[in-house]
């Protein structure tokens, strides 16, 4: 804990980091976390949350944020200060974490576009989860830039709407949080 921290000041570049937060799933815990970000002017790019240990009522919150290293350190410490928070890990700093996102994508079209849509979906391993004569709904899972790329390709082919879960992430290897 006592290593000199002047490099915090030197690096003013904004970085994107994925934080994973283990919390007690009690009423208001999400509001507490989100409220902390808004009250202190931190960014949230994406947020996912769900109870992951039902017997112990614990949830995992995955937050993607962008900030300078100094502010990132603050975000982590401020989160750890919240009473229902067990632990905060900066998966980006720890390196090489698995990051996934799920999206449902509605595309409408006829004729050649429809064939092309399906061909691209196959290449991206997107599944058809709903189909009508004039539309598909695809389900795609992957790293955010893969999802992003697929959505961009669907744009000219009749993209109607998109919903995304936001990023969720876990560290590699045998160690748990």
């Amino acid at each position, binding site marked *: 804990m*006592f290593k000199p921290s002047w490099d915090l000041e030197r690096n003013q570049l904004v970085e994107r980091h994925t934080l994973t937060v283990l919390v007690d799933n009690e*009423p*208001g815990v999400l509001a507490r976390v989100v*409220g902390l970000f808004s009250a202190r002017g931190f960014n949230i790019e994406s947020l996912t949350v769900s109870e992951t240990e039902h017997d112990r009522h614990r949830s995992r919150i995955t937050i993607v944020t962008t900030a300078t290293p*100094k502010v990132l350190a603050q975000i982590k*410490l*401020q989160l750890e200060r919240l*009473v229902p928070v067990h632990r905060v890990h900066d998966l980006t700093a720890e390196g090489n974490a698995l990051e996934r996102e799920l999206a449902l994508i509605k595309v409408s079209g006829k004729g050649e576009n429809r064939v092309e849509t399906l061909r691209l979906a196959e290449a991206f391993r997107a599944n058809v989860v709903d189909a009508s004569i004039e539309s598909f709904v695809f389900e795609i899972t992957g790293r955010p830039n893969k999802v992003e790329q697929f959505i961009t390709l669907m744009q000219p082919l009749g993209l109607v709407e998109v919903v995304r879960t936001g990023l969720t992430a876990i560290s590699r290897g045998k160690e748990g949080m």
Partner: protein
Amino acid sequence: MAQQMTGAEMVIQALIDQDVEHIFGYPGGAVLPIYDAIFQQDKVEHILVRHEQGATHMAEGYARSTGKCGVVLVTSGPGATNAVTGLADALLDSIPMVCITGQVPTPLIGSDAFQECDTVGITRNCTKHNYLVKSVEDLPRILHEAFYVATSGRPGPVVIDIPKDVQFALGSYMKPNNGSHPTYKPQMEGELEAIKMAVDMMLKAEKPVFYTGGGVVNSGPEASKELRELADLTGYPVTSTLMGLGAFPASSDQWLGMLGMHGTYEANMAMHDCDLMICVGARFDDRITGRLDGFSPNSKKIHIDIDPSSINKNIVVDLPIIGDCGLVLEEMVRIWRSRTNEPRTEAIAPWWKQINEWRDVKSLAYEKSDKVIKPQYAIERLFELTKERDVYITTEVGQHQMWAAQHFHFNEPNRWMTSGGLGTMGYGLPAAVGVQTAHRDALVIDIAGEASVQMTMQEMSTAVQYGLPIKVFILNNEYMGMVRQWQELLHGGRYSNSYSESLPDFVKMAEAFGAHGIICEDPAELDDKIMEMIDSDKPVIFDCRVTKEENCLPMIPSGKAHHEMILPDTADIGNIIDEKGKVLV
């Protein structure tokens, strides 16, 4: 076998088990069962306030003067919202407080019921933690946990929102456990390696300074003792924030006075020019640092704090030590002793010489007068005439607060109660009531301004009801003095809405409350009238008429660094702050 009782009875039993002797509150529909439980016992004394904000400040004054947790009890809706200011105040100044709020019955929550508000939503960002109790089974655990969270680590306010049906419900009560929590585990002991490294840095310093804060007071009397010992051993100079006054004795030769925006020249210059800053339980607040990029440019910085999030928040430091400052200071003393038995008098002699030159500037000097009472003079006399007594000082917020910090001198911790972080006008009078509740025989003085004191004046009635002889010493300059001073600094002396029109006759007001009123306009009569105030066994309102347009100096103007202070001999303060500084507060 767990005892069966109602939720309301559990509240009282938990207070008794937590050694609570006094609570400050105001009844209402949603807390009637708890008030009924209060009625049927005599272990916990309830102080009836006149406004819920008053209750919170009383609890703060009580907590800060005793080191115990302050307890507040208010009703739902407006009761809770009126308490919000005091909660925010306690959060910023790290005051341990448990605030119990009534809530509409659980089936009505969310229906916009009468006197309903989203108390946990409203108070989430102005408390350390808060709870909505949905079942009586959870109540005992939450009550005890609230006291643990409020008082351990960096202290702060905790709200427990209890719906009325939960207060009526029967359940089994349990005693407090030994004070632990599954997730909230503040680090108390500092890392030994870090402390050793700190002592090494201190042994090499040529221009060291201790910069201490409210954390030393919060840590308890032991921390103040250790600080004194360490200062003794090292011979290093000590300055303190507003919140830390009294932790180190003002009578010591090593004392530089308060630092920061209205701190002394020597304290701020020592901060600016030091080569080693040892920050103990302070948080590099903007009142302290001035312009961040001009803050103590050539020093190594050690930061001792119990709250890891205080580290590197405003100022990046070289050596953080997380832990309770009392325990860390104790270790420092031990390690210092193992290295040397001599203070480093010779090594730092040039530094003291420099500091003494800064002292010669006499930054707290002011122009004396025998025609009008100068506010600084009034505080000086108040100090001289009370210093042999068992005295506690509270303040409101503004010029009088800064003059009190500059000219009243504290030699012990827990004697100085002021709203530092939030800067809450109206804090001092109720805080004095809280202090006097805990220290019935002490002399408790609220050093006030005529504007601030009117914000919570109604609590005089509380003081009279409970026979609490607080002394409200008003430095009456008929202006919101600090607002006026900033208007002179920044806005060409256009005193927009800062003149206190239609002031009440404070003497008659005191009499109307059943208190004693004194007015003084002549410096020659001041001593006698202060003695009259001290000798009165009633609460007193003292209307001390002082110079109207006195500025509170010295001052680090907004946007400037420590070495760019305005000193008392500055003729025109209207042209000092540049455009960038103007947007700052």
